[in-house]
């Protein structure tokens, strides 16, 4: 038996074994979808899709679930998660816009403008920023940025004006967006830089020969050529920002309030809560059946949106391979 294994493998057997292992990954994904959907089913069964809507306070709705018994009535599953969804989309969207601007500018800087010495230091710096564990960003946020904003950026009259509704001093949207931007900008910068460097040189040189200045040439030719790669990078970064649980739960303020842009400056200090951070926060009492299925419903929603995002980024990248501008 062992002797047979030790002999050199035939090509057919090797292909089958390797293929089977590779398919394990696909099977694991399917298992994940099945398990998360099964856990989320009771919420869909009792609430339909209305749990995606607004109404009531998710904090108190989720709080009420923690005390439900083993066979909870249908009413125990009641949750209206709109403030959480809004918080997720708002924080991730703002971070994505900011991060996209920063990473595009940085990538152009690295590829076109940076002196060689600066370029050589930038590469490991971007790598490092992309590798810093998110909990460290969260720690900086909760121990440095949140106290700083509470003491210096929010005036006491602003705090008093809303003190019956929310606290402005426990962190909020602005800090979360800044940290999320710092987390996703290096990832996008790395991908966009790679793509920019893979644009054939003659394309851009041709544009410069036609009289465009180097910046215009980059914007008109290189950036246009790598648009799909930019979209793909943004998709990856958006998935990362939507699913970030730890940082948000550390600096978001912990109240599922919906920050309102009409509030002016206070908007940036208003607390919020995202789907992922709610899962982390309430995971301790996940054995309560109603809460269990609610958290799985949140996870299913996250999974669905990240699935859509990565599928879109994959589809966008497929035609790119034909032109070999980027991988």
């Amino acid at each position: 038996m062992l002797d047979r294994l030790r002999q050199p493998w035939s090509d057919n057997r090797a292909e089958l074994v390797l293929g089977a292992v590779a398919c394990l990954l696909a099977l694991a994904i399917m298992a994940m979808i099945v398990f998360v959907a099964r856990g989320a089913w009771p919420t869909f069964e009792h609430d339909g899709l209305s749990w995606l809507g607004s109404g009531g306070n998710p904090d108190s709705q989720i709080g009420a679930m923690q005390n439900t018994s083993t066979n909870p009535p249908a009413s125990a599953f009641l949750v209206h998660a709109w403030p959480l969804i809004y918080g997720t989309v708002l924080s991730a969207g703002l971070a994505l816009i900011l991060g996209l601007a920063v990473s595009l500018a940085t990538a152009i800087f690295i590829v076109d403008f940076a002196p060689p010495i600066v370029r050589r230091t930038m590469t490991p710096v971007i790598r490092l920023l992309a590798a810093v564990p998110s909990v460290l960003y969260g720690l900086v946020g909760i121990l440095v940025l949140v106290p700083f904003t509470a003491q210096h950026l929010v005036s006491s009259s602003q705090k008093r004006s809303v003190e019956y509704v929310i606290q402005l001093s426990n962190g909020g949207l602005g800090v979360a967006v800044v940290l999320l931007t710092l987390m996703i900008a290096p990832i996008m910068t790395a991908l966009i830089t790679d793509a920019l460097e893979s644009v054939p040189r003659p394309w851009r040189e041709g544009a410069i020969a036609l009289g465009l200045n180097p910046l215009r040439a980059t914007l008109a030719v290189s950036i246009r050529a790598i648009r799909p790669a930019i979209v793909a990078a943004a998709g990856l970064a958006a998935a990362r920002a939507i699913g970030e649980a730890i940082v948000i739960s550390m600096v978001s303020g912990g109240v599922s309030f919906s920050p309102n842009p009409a509030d002016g400056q206070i908007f940036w200090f208003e607390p919020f809560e995202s789907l992922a951070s709610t899962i982390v926060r309430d995971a301790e009492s996940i054995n309560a059946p109603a809460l269990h299925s609610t958290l799985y419903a949140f996870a299913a929603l996250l999974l669905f949106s990240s699935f859509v995002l990565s599928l879109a980024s994959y589809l966008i990248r497929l035609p790119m391979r034909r032109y070999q501008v980027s991988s």
Partner: protein
Amino acid sequence: MAAVEPIGGAPVTPSRRRRGRRAPVRSWRPRDQAIFVLSWIAGTGLCLCAAALVIFFIVQGAHYLRPALLVTRPSPAVNQALSGGILDPIEGTLLLGVIGLLIAAPLGVITAIWVVEYGRPRWLSRIVESAVEVIAGTPDIVLAIFGLALFELGVFAPFSFAEPGGAFGRSFLNAGIIVSAVAIPSIYTATRNGLLATPRQLREASYALGKTRVATIRRVVMPAVRRDVATGATLGLGRIYGDTAIVVLLLGATLRNQPENNVPLIGLLRGTGSTLTSFIYDSSPAGDGNAPNKAYAAAAVLLLMVLLLNWGVGRIGRIGGPPIHEERRLGA
């Protein structure tokens, strides 16, 4: 307007001509100049952020990190002087990295080899490729909650311990299995890029000598991409070390590593524990401990480990002379 010297201007000295060839930003339109300045600000700003982050944690670490902390076990106490050190989280981080890498490395490498070298039928390899993309895009909190559902099944009781109606579901083994998913995409991508960049002549020479395909992969292709595998594994290890959500949910986040029984290694694998990330989370004001000093100390250690890994990635690329293929990519 363009970068052309005026005809009949002052005699051009060599040094001036060289400067003339670089971007004469002053002659650009104001909007272009603004974008140029913004790109400088963004680039240097990111550098400054990285520098500030590293310096901040090194300073805080120098403040609060004592050698004694590294070898004392943590203990629950409100008083930070009595709450012990961070020995268990360090051990937990290392152990979780080993488990995760032991699972992720073979899976990622084998998948990459199959997709690049065989990849038949085509639709199946497309599915596998997009499965890796999905894993890369799935938030770790979703992976964690999937692991919780999976390992609470009674079948998986040997991985933690049995409970009425299933299993406890939280242990080093369970967390390691799920956390390996975080490392798989970087290992897969690095290996795949290496395989794609390996020259075809290398394989053809081996076929010409009568080697079978699988022998070619083992003896010729694998040695050629060894460096890529190492790079990917190091990046993946960094991702594992830095993951928090999976550890918080699936490792039980007990302060000390608590073996499930007295069997030496298996008891530890089935038991609960903590890693540096979960220790930092719990010690921060967001967790239960609220011991910022300990959090800073642990954060400095964690950042040091990540820096070391990062440095390792750069080193691996230069081991043993120039590579067979040129690989100068920034993104993993």
